[in-house]
């Protein structure tokens, strides 16, 4: 029985100093992952990284040889949804492989260690592997009043983030809350929450927003690092281009219905049953960048639009405040007490103008004008 299995039996996924010397390939073999499953996994990751299939052998070879990076997973203001997404990736081998490739030294939700023991494990990793470990952050970081609105082990989230993310090789902010503040940061943002990038300005942060993060994108990001030795190319919001470079609307399976002019007009109507476009029902796919249509969730089973619900725009910054309303195309005009749409106000305005000038015209017709004299006229 290997040292690894001992650890697994203890339920404590703790650093195994001998295990560290093994390559990912060796560990997987030891864990009983078949070569076939491993290659399948490599192909899936190649596809997730938007690389051509011919890269799969390169990925396999690199993973065979590379050492596991130590990883710590911090949870701040979150719902543990990203952890759930990772643990429940339906395909068991993928989930296993993910957890095996990453040497997860600290993860509040899944580690067996508790209290001082757990904190000690974290301390050890970040001091022993300073500048070499990967940090995954889930959840937003409250900044208001010195960051008093959240703490674990007697340390505020802000201090912990500065300490751990600051010394990491790279920080992966998983989920919209860690990336952009997400729901905790929604107006009125009582705790002054922000994403990791804002809380720890100096850190190297890769944002993987989404509610929850797509576990495939997380794995692909790590695999990208292991294979190429650098973090993937990012867009303006710090998101890897391979996963967030395309607009949902441009890859959506309902797009032909959008262009054709076939829309769902009411929930459950004929169009809804036929899978028509959800634009009129408030779909934010036209403004959202994510690979949901191709990567999908739960082992590629489905995704919101695929199952008949419009895109909520969850992977965009401040989506809760700026992508609403969820089920309508446009928000109401602000400043009007009762609910008023732009069209109601616009039609009212146009009708008002028309009525005013109709009255003006009538009054004018009843009046006798004075012709201008030669002095007052211009020409």
């Amino acid at each position: 029985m290997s040292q690894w299995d001992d650890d697994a039996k203890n339920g404590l996924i703790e650093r195994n100093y001998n295990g560290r010397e093994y390559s990912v390939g060796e560990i997987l073999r030891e864990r009983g992952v078949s070569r076939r499953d491993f290659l399948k996994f490599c192909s899936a990751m190649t596809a997730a990284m938007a690389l051509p299939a011919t890269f799969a052998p390169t990925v396999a070879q690199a993973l065979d040889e590379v050492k596991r990076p130590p990883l710590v997973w911090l949870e701040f203001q979150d719902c543990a949804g990203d952890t759930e997404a990772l643990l429940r990736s339906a395909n068991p081998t993928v989930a296993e492989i993910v957890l095996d490739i990453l040497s997860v030294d600290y993860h509040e939700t899944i580690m067996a260690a508790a209290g001082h023991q757990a904190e000690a494990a974290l301390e050890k990793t970040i001091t022993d592997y300073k500048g070499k470990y990967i940090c995954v952050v889930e959840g937003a970081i409250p900044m208001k009043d010195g960051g008093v609105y959240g703490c674990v082990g007697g340390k505020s989230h802000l201090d912990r983030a500065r300490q751990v993310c600051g010394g990491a090789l790279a920080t992966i902010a998983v989920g919209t809350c860690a990336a952009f503040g997400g729901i905790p940061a929604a107006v009125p943002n009582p705790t002054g929450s922000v994403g990791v990038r804002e809380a720890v300005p100096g850190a190297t942060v890769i944002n993987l927003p989404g509610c929850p993060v797509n576990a495939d994108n997380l794995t692909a990001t790590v695999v990208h690092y292991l294979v190429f030795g650098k973090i993937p190319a990012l867009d303006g919001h710090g998101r890897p281009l391979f996963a967030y470079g395309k607009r949902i609307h441009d890859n959506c399976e309902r797009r032909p219905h959008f262009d054709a002019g076939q829309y769902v007009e009411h929930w459950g109507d004929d169009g809804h049953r036929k899978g028509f476009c959800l634009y009129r029902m408030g779909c934010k796919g036209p403004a959202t960048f994510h690979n949901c249509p191709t990567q999908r969730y739960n082992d590629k089973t489905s995704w919101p639009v695929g199952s008949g619900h419009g895109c909520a725009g969850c992977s965009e910054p401040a989506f809760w405040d700026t992508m609403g309303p969820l089920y309508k195309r446009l928000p109401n005009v602000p400043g009007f007490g009762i609910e008023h749409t732009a069209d109601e106000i616009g039609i009212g305005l146009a009708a008002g103008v028309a009525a005013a000038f109709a009255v003006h015209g009538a009054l004018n017709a009843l009046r006798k004008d004075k012709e201008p004299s030669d002095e007052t006229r211009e020409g």
Partner: protein
Amino acid sequence: MSGQCKFKNYIWELPLRWCHWINVMCIVVLSVTGFFIGTPFSFGRSASDFTIGWIRFIHFTAAYLFAVSVISRVLWSFIGNKYAGWKEFFPLATDKGRQKFIGMLRYYLLIDKDVPETVGHNPLATTAYIGLFCIYSIMILTGFALYAEHAPGSPMYRVFGFMYAMFSNQGMRLTHHFCMWLIVGFVINHIYSAWLMDIKEHGSEISSMFCGYKFTVKKED
């Protein structure tokens, strides 16, 4: 009275008239197609139709034409004759302009009965046109910013970077949508006024926008 209007003056030069009618055409096309973009009806009978695709294509084509036409008109205000010049649009900046402006306003508010006759633009109208040009700018800026949204990092997206900083995503759509109604409000007012002044000034106001000529009693200075 019209018998007295015997002098024929060339007021609106050809580029100004072209810009005016191209804008009119574009605004009609943009409003109709824009309405369908905002509230698309299910025109499509089969998934291989392309109705909203075409509507959007027409909106964007008209949008480019509109932008070129608006920019041309602005340039023309530095090139064309004095009736088209940019100074016309700020009557409130001069004493004479303010006087005329007040006269016009009193006439419109049914206080005075003297028809203030003008050869070029009337000062009340040019003040409204300034408002209209602001709305044009908003439409063009929000329109192109929304248009570039699908390709972050593209040159057009970078040019409109300041727009994305100023507007939220949905706020930009709402602004673009709502300003259409402001234009509709202007147009109702505008056509009424053109018609009113055509009747009152006897200078063939409306046809001047087609042929360029207005008729006056006196020879213009």
